[in-house]
């Protein structure tokens, strides 16, 4: 790797020119910095917005499914159904309604995130031991306070595990948003393929993976902070 970088640097300012078309090119990173930053910021924005929207819809849905067991299989079945729609198809399906906009991508990705999150929330709440719930009721907790103070904190590890999966998949799926020109780093990947621009392509791919890993670590750290009691038991 370092050898390649050095070779690229020695070749002068044109290691991303048509003639050499190096895979790794430090010059490209500095020259097109704005472009890369813009794409990364867009990628983060779309990912975060999608996951947040997904959470916002998944929570009421999961609570509803828990209240009404008859609804549960419908909700789970629907969310499995959404997963069989390929991402490449979902965005064009939404375009007639939302146009070529970032909303199209965010709604589509939120639907995918939703399917993972609903499952995780249901599993998490189901894993709360019954005796804990009963003691809380015995202490005079109402339904709302029971949920917020007892059930959610205990369900948090499972929910956060689901959130990690959802976030990492969303980062990867955002690249497909390049279909409607709102794919963050996916736009650069698409451009890299179409114009055979290797430095751009590799940089965007690597940034994508790095982004997923960074977000994953951030969520793990948040979880450790939120659930200090699991620190000793799980690692």
């Amino acid at each position, binding site marked *: 790797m370092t050898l390649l970088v050095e070779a690229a640097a020695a070749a002068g300012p044109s290691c991303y020119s048509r003639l050499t078309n190096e895979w790794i090119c430090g010059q490209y990173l500095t020259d097109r910095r704005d472009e890369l930053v813009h794409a990364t910021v867009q990628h983060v924005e779309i990912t975060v917005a999608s996951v947040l929207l997904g959470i916002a819809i998944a929570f009421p849905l999961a609570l509803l499914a828990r209240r009404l067991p008859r609804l549960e299989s419908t909700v789970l079945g629907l969310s499995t159904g959404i997963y069989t729609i390929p991402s490449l*198809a979902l965005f064009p399906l939404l375009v007639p309604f939302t146009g070529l906009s970032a909303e199209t991508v965010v709604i589509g990705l939120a639907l995918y995130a939703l399917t993972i999150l609903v499952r995780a929330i249901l599993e998490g709440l189901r894993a709360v031991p019954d005796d804990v719930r009963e003691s809380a009721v015995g202490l005079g907790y109402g339904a709302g306070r029971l949920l917020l103070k007892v059930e959610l904190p205990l369900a948090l590890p499972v929910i956060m595990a689901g959130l990690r999966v959802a976030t990492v998949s969303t980062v990867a799926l955002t690249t497909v948003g390049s279909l409607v020109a709102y794919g963050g780093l996916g736009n650069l990947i698409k451009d890299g393929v179409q114009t055979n621009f290797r430095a751009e392509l590799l940089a965007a791919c690597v940034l994508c*993976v790095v982004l997923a890993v960074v977000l994953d670590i951030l969520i793990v750290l948040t979880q450790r902070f939120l659930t200090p009691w699991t620190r000793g038991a799980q690692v």
Partner: protein
Amino acid sequence: MTVFHDTWDYLTTGANWRGDGKMLDLLLQQLLLSVTALALALLVGLPIALWLGHLGRGGFLAINVSNIGRAVPTFALLALFVTADPWPWLPYFPGTAEFGPYGRAGLATMMALALFALPPIITNSYVAVREVPADVKQAADGMGMTGWQKFVRVELPLSLPLVMSGIRLALVQVWATATIAALVAGPGLGRVITDGFFRTNYGKGIAGAVVVALVALLLEIVAALVQRALDPLPRESSRKRRRGMSEGGPSVSDDAEALGD
């Protein structure tokens, strides 16, 4: 809604199905591609995962392969494969070369899809063998079974349902993801979707999407039937079975409980 009317029109016009490069052709191409990619992933992933599960070691590896695999976008992988110069010792890979019935960039697409299918297969199979109850394993040891006998006669039959769910999940996901090949002008039904979309013929695009989704459902059903036919331990509880339908990790605990019953 004229869009849906266009979609219906496109789907019911026979000329859109038959012929070279038309939907039926692309559908078969994508099916061939998905099945080959899955077979490739099974060939590589299944022995490793089952063996690691049998040893009860390497869990860190098995789980992390899945996490890393999820972080690498298939589109990025495919883009890298297609743009790279073909290797001298593997003439069709990577790159955009025609590859027999698999079409343009066939081998690159197949490899990307196989890599995409590995994580669910490895994780599910590993967990499946690992979660075979310890007392059953001890009983097998007590009967004087060798490691291989224990694996073939005890662990494999007990873990089969979960291994199969992993394969089912992978099959449906590979099928749906195969459409991404269209982004690099590759093979498969994705082309119908992107074509319709870029020429603002949304009816055609949605028609492609509908066909892909329907075949995905069909594959899921067929795979479920195959799984039921192969299940060596027919189990009475249909509720648990349904809950295990195409899930990732979460189904593990349910099935593990069912095994313990």
